[in-house]
């Protein structure tokens, strides 16, 4: 056998392993070799375990080879708990933490025959849009090394875009799968809230958090989703409804698919001209492929970002109260319990996490609770109702994923509000619990040439429709086959 290409996708690898055209060990060696070359430049991984990966691959080769992800090299964002690898949430708070249990995501991947190679970089506790909120080196965008990979699942998106891995698992609270997928030119799916278990995913904002796949094609994302989705006795908020065949759904485009467009959203002052042009062109291609374009209204769309930042910070302040330096994580010794808590948390949390905890406690305080948190929960209902009304007129809603392509490292570090405003197109799906995908739809015209993403949002638990629409769009172009210019870094 000749060495397989690092650009083989999930579907192709699993098929070749099952038919014995390829061995899992050969596939994992290709991934490890590419990671060795690219990791020093991209910083996508925070933990790599070649020995563990080779052992898993050998087990696949010696076994039945019929798992849905048999022999597929995968990485998990380091927000997912793994019993055999350290889990840090990208935080000094959990530096070196070795979890005493395996989370449900890692377990499902293992049961499907996947070969886990390591853990991928993220903004600390999944809070950020640039993968710069990290204890070490920020992740670099494979398309332009001076640009951000996006966040918070930046390591996952960069690793997939650079051909280090065919797929990775990210998490998405306000866009953290879709925005880095868009900025790195790959496919990322945030499932409906409750479609995928949260057991073993370190909590940021529990009513918004969802795990989901990043890969280089819609079909590959569908295959990984099929493994992740479904009831979990360890998560009582995980839906018990059956899991459809998501791979088959990619080929089942409803006749006369109706694609909704909220035109007012395109009047956003910060919308990049190339992003807008690529989005308009994508709509025309969808129309030419048989879809019907429908104008829809999302009357409370401009309230989505402030609603999101009230709710996610409130939930984060509550969720992160558990980091006390007592049971796990960093402990800075001090005389009293209160002083120990304060010293440990101040040493363990980075600036953005501390800002969000402070903001969360601000909106939750008794004298401001109704003004901020109570009101935001009601506006959230308005936003969810807007989507419900819109889906009476269309099957999926299209928008750009991010208002701008990948920005330069450092450009927004001192301006959190500017960073938050980049979430304008993505947070709505989290607030309403809807499935949403980002797929490559074009590139910027100037230099550097940067990928642009199209977002498609569907009704609750209609991942099948989202995948079908995304696959329809994918068939109209070749953007998902474009490769970043990494030759100058030796790959």
């Amino acid at each position, binding site marked *: 056998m000749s060495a397989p290409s690092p650009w083989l996708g999930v579907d192709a690898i699993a098929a070749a392993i099952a038919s014995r055209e390829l061995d899992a060990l050969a596939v994992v060696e290709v991934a490890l070799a590419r990671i060795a070359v690219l990791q020093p430049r991209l910083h996508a991984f925070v933990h790599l375990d070649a020995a563990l990966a080779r052992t898993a691959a050998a087990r696949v080769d010696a076994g039945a080879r019929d798992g849905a992800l048999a022999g597929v090299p995968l990485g998990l964002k380091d927000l997912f708990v793994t019993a055999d690898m350290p889990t840090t949430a990208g935080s000094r708070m959990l530096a070196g933490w070795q979890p005493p249990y395996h989370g449900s995501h890692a377990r499902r991947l293992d049961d499907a025959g996947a070969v886990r190679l390591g853990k991928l970089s993220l903004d600390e506790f999944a809070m950020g849009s640039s993968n710069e909120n990290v204890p070490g080196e920020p992740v670099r965008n494979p398309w332009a090394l001076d640009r951000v990979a996006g966040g918070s699942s930046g390591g996952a998106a960069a690793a997939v875009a650079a051909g280090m891995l065919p797929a990775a698992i990210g998490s998405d609270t306000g866009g953290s799968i879709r925005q880095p997928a868009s900025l790195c030119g790959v496919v990322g799916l945030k499932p409906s809230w409750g479609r995928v278990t949260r057991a073993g995913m370190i909590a940021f904002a529990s009513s918004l958090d969802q795990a989901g796949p990043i890969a280089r094609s819609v079909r590959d994302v569908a295959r990984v989703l099929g493994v992740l989705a479904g009831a979990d006795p360890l998560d009582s908020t995980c839906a018990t409804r059956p899991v459809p065949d998501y791979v088959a759904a990619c080929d089942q485009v409803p006749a006369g698919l109706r694609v909704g467009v909220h035109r007012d959203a395109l009047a956003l002052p910060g919308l990049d001209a190339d992003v807008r042009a690529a989005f308009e062109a994508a709509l025309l291609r969808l129309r030419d492929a048989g879809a019907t374009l429908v104008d829809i209204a999302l009357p409370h769309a401009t309230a989505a970002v402030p609603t999101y930042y009230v709710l996610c910070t409130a939930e984060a302040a509550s969720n992160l109260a558990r980091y006390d330096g*007592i049971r796990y994580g960093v402990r800075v*010794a001090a005389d009293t319990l209160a002083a120990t808590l304060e010293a440990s948390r101040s040493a363990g949390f980075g600036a953005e996490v501390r800002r969000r905890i402070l903001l969360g406690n601000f909106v939750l305080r008794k004298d401001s609770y109704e003004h901020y948190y109570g009101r935001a929960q009601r506006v959230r209902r308005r936003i*969810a109702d807007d989507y419900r009304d819109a889906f009476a007129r269309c099957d999926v809603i299209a928008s750009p994923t991010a208002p701008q392509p990948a920005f330069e490292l450092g450009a927004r570090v001192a301006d959190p509000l500017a960073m938050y405003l980049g979430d304008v197109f993505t947070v709505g799906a989290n607030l309403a619990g809807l499935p949403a995908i980002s797929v490559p739809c074009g590139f910027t015209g100037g230099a550097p040439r940067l990928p642009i993403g199209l977002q498609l949002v569907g009704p609750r638990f209609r991942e099948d429709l989202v995948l079908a629409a995304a696959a329809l769009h994918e068939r109209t172009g070749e953007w998902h086959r474009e490769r970043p210019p990494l030759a100058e870094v030796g790959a």
Partner: protein
Amino acid sequence: MAAIDPAELDALARLSRLSLADDERDAFARQLGEVIAYLEALQAIDVEGVAPWRPDEPAATPLRDDVAGAAVDRDAMLAAVPVSDEGLVIVPRFVES
């Protein structure tokens, strides 16, 4: 946009069990002030008679049979505890004099 008051920032830090370094206090006060001013946009939305959002599914909390299941191993749990002794988690003094 106005930075939040230093006393307000200190009160939030106490509630959050965080201490702020002197060299970051001004930046935090300004950044939080800008974000809080931005959040005022929510006051323009009419929410009269609108119930707070809650998830639609699952509709009820599922229950499992009352049968003992596998638990996380005690020694593995204790291995992650910063300070422990003979199977116990060691906690700093919590009664303040």
